[in-house]
């Protein structure tokens, strides 16, 4: 298997194919018997999984609590529109700020932990946020979730884009947010800072003795990762015009991990493929059986057993030989 150099995360061809598919998706989604919202869902969850993978695949640290930041993004956005200002961009910014600030604080408390301990504590903190949204009925709507609001059309001054009713317009809006986010992540990973993260993933001891303050870099990676997870959460709430405590539940964190590992956490686009498989499988299988999670679980186990580098790892091996 040919390997990509460290400062090239994905081949030009695979990036080009992915962008073409994403850009044309609303044009053929119906033709294959599906609907645009499903595509939007894939892009949103792909952003969450790719954000998680910034930490998991490129810094070598597993978080099992990313749903917390995803959920904070969702509640931040929903509450902004419901209680504060009717503005979609502002809602996203508030959601992002909520998730990021929480990550800065929690990150500082956990960067000394490693491996399983790190993962366990991220779950624990995630569950704290879950219970807060669950219990704090008056503000968060508790178990029923936060409804009675909807995303607001984008006002650009000279024209208005109706992302509220036009599903395609909303898809492209989400895709723009996605592109900016993954663009920033790809850019960072190719920088000297990004290389320090890869160094930590490859050999923490060596990295430390090369003069990299591991805890500080790990904290930054965690915060960056959670920032984009909260953007995804905000978009998720906007997609559904609704959010509820399940967005923060640890099972949701598990889903992000499954997507990343399924698609291939060593490749930049892997989690996107994982998210697509996950969402399509959920959509298709759940219309036939209640038990769709066991199918995803089975598929996941098979991939991990036979293709440890994920779905994209298999494709890459085939094409590069």
């Amino acid at each position, binding site marked *: 298997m040919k390997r990509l150099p460290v400062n090239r995360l994905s081949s030009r061809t695979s990036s080009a194919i992915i962008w073409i598919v994403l850009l044309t998706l609303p044009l053929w989604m119906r033709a294959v018997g599906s609907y645009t919202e499903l595509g939007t869902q894939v892009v949103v969850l792909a952003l969450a999984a790719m954000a998680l993978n910034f930490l998991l695949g490129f810094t070598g640290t597993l978080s099992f609590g990313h749903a917390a930041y995803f959920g904070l993004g969702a509640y931040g956005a929903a509450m902004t529109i419901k209680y504060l200002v009717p503005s979609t961009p502002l809602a996203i910014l508030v959601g992002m700020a909520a998730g990021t600030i929480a990550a800065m604080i929690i990150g500082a408390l956990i960067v000394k932990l490693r491996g399983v301990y790190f993962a366990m504590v991220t779950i624990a903190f995630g569950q704290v946020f879950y219970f807060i949204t669950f219990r704090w009925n008056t503000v968060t709507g508790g178990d029923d979730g936060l409804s009675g609001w909807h995303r607001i059309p984008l006002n650009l001054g000279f024209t208005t884009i109706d992302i509220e009713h036009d599903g395609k317009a909303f898809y492209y809006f989400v895709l723009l947010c996605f592109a900016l986010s993954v663009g920033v992540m790809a850019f960072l990973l190719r920088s*000297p800072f990004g*290389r320090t993260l890869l*160094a930590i993933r490859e*050999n923490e*001891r*060596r990295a*430390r003795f090369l*003069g990299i303050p591991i805890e500080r870099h790990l904290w930054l990676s965690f915060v960056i990762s959670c920032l984009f997870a909260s953007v995804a959460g905000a978009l998720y709430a906007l997609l559904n015009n609704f959010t509820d405590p399940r967005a923060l539940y640890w099972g949701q964190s598990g889903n992000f991990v499954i997507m990343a590992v399924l698609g291939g956490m060593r490749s930049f686009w892997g989690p996107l493929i994982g998210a697509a498989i996950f969402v399509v499988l959920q959509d298709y299988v759940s219309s036939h059986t209640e038990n769709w999670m066991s199918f995803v679980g089975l598929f996941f186990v098979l991939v991990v057993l036979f293709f440890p580098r994920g779905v994209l790892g298999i494709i890459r091996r085939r094409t590069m030989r």
Partner: protein
Amino acid sequence: MSLLDVQNVSRHFGSLVAVNGVSLAVERGELRAVIGPNGAGKTTFFNLISGFFPPTSGRIVFDGVDVTQLPVHERVVMGMARTFQITEIFPEFSVRENLRIPVEVAAGYRLRPWMSHTDDGEMRARVVELMEMGGLTDKADRLVGELPHGDQRATEIMMALALKPRLLLLDEPTAGMGDQETYDITRLIRRLHKDQGLTIVLIEHDMRVIFHLADRIMVLAEGAVLAEGTPDQIANDERVQAAYLGKAA
């Protein structure tokens, strides 16, 4: 003032005293060898100097600054670099990539989210220079994990050098090497010492290497200093012969 001044350091592991009241002063430009039987505490002593863990008691002064409580990365910034007894590299990266990381850290770029074209060129040139010095140029784009042991060791030494250290700590650089590889590494260390005036502390078992390189030798046994002196003094020291050379013969 000595570049490195270790004052009476000890390190306990539970009831085991791995390093017991060891002092060592290393002058600028000196090449000091540390020898001693297996389990004497040599690597532990290096771990204390480089900040892997703190000493149970004692002080470590580097370039006039008390570094006893400083974290590893701050000691690196001050000019301390080390290699490990068991090679620590990035096996899945190429030689070029392995060197690129310390080169960027040394330039103070570790938090940079971008890099200008000129800076990028400078970093590349520095990497090329290091690969030439370490005889690694023809393996630049090979994965380090796939290279022979000697080349891995050379890469590790060049990674430490990429940090532009003022003190280089080498833990058994020739361990597990054949004659040719040992010769190459010895020559490299000698060049660093003689041509560049680098201060080096070297743990080594191979006596040929030590007597060829060292200005002075410190002998550790059971965590304590057994003897200290020039290679000739050490070779003629009866206690050393009894405890160490005698055992090897």
